[in-house]
């Protein structure tokens, strides 16, 4: 049971790193980027190619995957996304769905449609035995890395100037602009950073979530659930939601396999109806 808890926490934290970029995007520009998973996929494939084909060390490939997705995000944001901000939600949804389809088919074409695996350093395989409980080493690594990232994010948000500009822009973009904050610049950087995080998450997730061209489609709903349940006005909301989701999904699939993912979808629907702004949000109506 503790193993399940442990696995669930690892899964949850991974989901958080993957989804927090989406949460910020949604909260900042009220823009639902269904293609967020594509950036994660990009990071994952980047890692796989670097490690398998070019023999780059795993830990060097991780930040490179982050950079790859971040740059990709920045470029796409400045060239394409920026034209879609003012459009109605339906258009935004269609636009990002289009991007998803393109990325899925494109990656299928370039990399083939099978699942890919990354060669992990040997010391990451296997388990630690702690108090008689088997803790997967890789999952432990994920918890450590994601935990550090979460703390760093919270620090950046609360203690840096960029952080306060970001928070101001999320709260009220118009007022922020009036105060002289370069909202579109903030947004471009945030989008890039969020995409980079997604890429890092995708890279870390190759081992746990599996990676194939349909990744953005498969995991889209998970990101949406994190954002829905966690709300978009803080870091802690999505964080807690991710943990809840991760543990719930792992435990659900273990204890009640016939219902499986059914449970978390239902949770999302219930939460959306009861509290449209998320379980943990500060209740700012939009």
């Amino acid at each position, binding site marked *: 049971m503790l193993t399940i808890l442990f696995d669930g926490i690892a899964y949850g934290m991974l989901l958080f790193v993957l989804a927090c970029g989406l949460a910020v995007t949604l909260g900042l520009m009220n823009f639902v980027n269904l293609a967020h998973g594509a950036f994660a996929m990009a990071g994952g494939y980047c890692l796989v190619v670097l490690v398998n084909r070019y023999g780059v060390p795993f830990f060097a490939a991780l930040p490179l995957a982050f950079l790859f997705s971040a740059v990709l995000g920045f470029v796409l944001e400045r060239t394409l996304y920026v034209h879609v901000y003012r459009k109605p939600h339906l258009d935004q949804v269609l636009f990002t769905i289009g991007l998803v389809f393109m990325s899925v088919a494109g990656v299928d074409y370039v990399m083939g449609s099978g699942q890919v695996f990354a060669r992990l350093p040997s010391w990451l395989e296997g388990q630690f035995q702690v108090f008689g409980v088997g803790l997967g080493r890789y999952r432990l690594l994920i918890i450590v890395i994601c935990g550090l990232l979460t703390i760093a994010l919270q620090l950046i948000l609360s203690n840096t100037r960029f952080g306060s500009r970001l928070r101001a822009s999320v709260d009220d973009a118009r007022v922020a602009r009036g105060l002289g904050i370069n909202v579109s610049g903030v947004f471009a950087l945030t989008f890039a950073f969020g995409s980079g995080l997604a890429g890092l998450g995708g890279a870390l997730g190759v081992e746990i979530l599996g990676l194939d061209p349909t990744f953005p489609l498969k995991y889209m709903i998970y990101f949406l659930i994190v954002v829905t349940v966690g709300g978009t006005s803080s870091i802690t909301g999505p964080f807690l939601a991710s943990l809840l989701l991760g543990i719930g999904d792992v435990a659900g699939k273990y204890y009640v396999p016939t219902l499986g993912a059914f449970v978390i979808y239902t949770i999302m629907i219930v939460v*959306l109806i009861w509290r449209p702004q998320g379980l943990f949000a500060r209740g700012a109506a*939009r």
Partner: protein
Amino acid sequence: MSRTSRIGAIQDRLAARSRWHVLEIAFWLAALSTYYLLPGKHLILTEIAILALFALSLDLILGYAGIISLGHAAFFGFGAYVAGLLAVHGIITEPLLALLASGLAAMLLGFVTSFLVLRGSDLTRIMVTLGVALVLRELANRNGWLTGGADGLQGVEIKPLLGLFRFDMFGRTAYAYSLGVLFVLFLLARRIVNSPFGLSLQSIKGNPLRAAAVGIPVNRRLVAIYTIAAGYAGIAGALLTQTTAFASLDVFAFDRSADLLLVLIIGGTGYLYGGLIGALVFKLMQDYISALTPQYWPFWIGLLLVVIVLVGRERITSWTTPIRALASRLDWRADRRRAQLAPGSHP
């Protein structure tokens, strides 16, 4: 102007909305003629008819009530599986009856889930409807004992339509059946949108605050149209099962809901023919592109979506306005009455 002629003029104005345009009649005559003129194409024509009905169902809620749904495939799939199960277990063997039963089942599902789309913003609706479709897919996936799981529903045998018309492998019966169902349901939908109920829906879409201030029970009307639309989608799904003798998880696929939105964007929403025209164009496009790149055709669909949004949906629908302008120009009777109402002609 006398009282009776005043009323007459008003009634005529309102009736103009629902009068059959020449182009409409031409459209259905052309559709009917394809049965005779294109005997080799009945299979793809059946697919087009089914997709058209599915798109019509989404137009009812999107174009007329303003509800965005990313999970309309939920009702399509539900209808499909119900029809399949009715056939497999011999519960209702006559296809038309089974079709009606599937439609009713889908309507029930629509009714039950309708309260989910009443509250919340467009964003919420998108996520909720997506969630519902995924839930159904998961349920179908996990309960293989009932649905056949990932392999699909096996052993679906469709008995002759009305006991008389066997479903042949060229799709003749299938096409006549699908086209007939499409036409009848279209007529019904046309009646509904031109009724006071339909007008109230359009008002809800335009300004829900004002609609409530006029005394319209907004939620009740939305539930009603959502239920009806779900029934239409369920019937479309049942048609698919009955004409292909198979049902798989595919019917719940996200692709289906996404493609459907594209169909309505191509054809335009809010005038009922958008789904039909869009389905025709979409299927032809799909056929053509899949022949070129069978595996990667989603790429081109994605590209089309991106381009359409960037260019602007209004510009796309503006392509259909010349057709509509032409249609109203053809309506010479309306011109005569308009002259009657002109200020100069008052006694």
